[in-house]
């Protein structure tokens, strides 16, 4: 009843946690994270499988060969050259046969869609590279911290030894 009103009240689960301070077990556990399921969010259904939909799924023809390992640089450069050629063709068509512009414009937009799809499929690679960079930074910071701690411990030992010698020297 409250899911579709424009200003829904907050969910009523807070009442279950009335005695949480006295007895933490009297209230229910928070729900586990959703794993491999579909969930509704603001009226739309989403899945937990976040993956870039392929071009065929969007009904767009794929212009570059799709293998297990795509040579991104080559594909991007060939798509760029195709794009320039099509722009030139469009200019030609507008001069000679202006009524046939629609096919050319469609081709150009197809190339743009392919370009953007290739760039989007580079993002997982970027994510992995960012992860590698983060791990390297973390390892370096940890090594630095280890060095610092070792140095301070040695310094502390040295000070203690010196103070012991001083105390021994002052003993009657």
């Amino acid at each position, binding site marked *: 009843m409250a899911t579709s009103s424009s200003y829904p009240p907050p969910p009523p689960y807070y009442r279950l946690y009335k005695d949480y301070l006295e007895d933490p077990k009297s209230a229910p556990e928070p729900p586990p994270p959703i794993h491999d399921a579909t969930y509704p969010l603001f009226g739309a259904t989403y899945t937990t499988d976040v993956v870039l939909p392929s071009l065929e799924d969007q009904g767009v023809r794929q212009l570059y060969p799709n293998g297990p*390992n795509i040579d*991104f*640089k080559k594909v*991007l*450069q060939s798509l*760029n050259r195709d*794009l*320039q050629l099509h*722009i030139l063709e*469009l*200019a030609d068509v*507008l001069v000679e046969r202006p009524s046939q512009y629609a096919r050319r414009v469609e081709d*150009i937009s197809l190339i*743009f869609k392919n*370009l*953007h799809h290739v*760039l989007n499929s*580079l*993002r997982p*690679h*970027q994510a*992995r*590279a960012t*992860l*590698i960079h983060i*791990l*390297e930074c*973390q*390892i370096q910071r*940890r*090594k630095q*911290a*280890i060095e610092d*701690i*070792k140095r*301070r*411990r040695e310094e*502390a*030992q040295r000070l*203690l030894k010196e103070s012991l010698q001083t105390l021994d020297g002052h003993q009657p």
Partner: protein
Amino acid sequence: MDIISQLQEQVNTIALLALNTFGALQRDAPPVRLSSNYPEPTTNPSEETINITEHTKTTSATLVQAAKTFDALVAALPLSGEDEQLKRIAELQAENEAVGLELEKQLQGAERELKQVQELFNQAAHNCLNLKKPD
């Protein structure tokens, strides 16, 4: 901005430039003779027509320059295979684990020593207070 976002921006820029080039051409083009029944349209070579050719040259040069920038950005992409990346991530995780254990050990040792030093300091202060006779 990271290089993939720059590439995406460049693609959008190329689209915008192409759009503007053709739009300006369509807007500023002088009338064209459709059939031999109609007289030739009067083309007075004013400075506007000269401006149009100049403008066309600059816009097309900008478009080609944008395409060259895109190529340069693509050449600058630091790409490596997915398997290499996954292997490197596994190595780094193992190293991170080992370094973390070492750090944990050092921290525990340092905390132990800190406790000892604090204990000693407390004893020394206690003894000092006890030795001081109140006047």
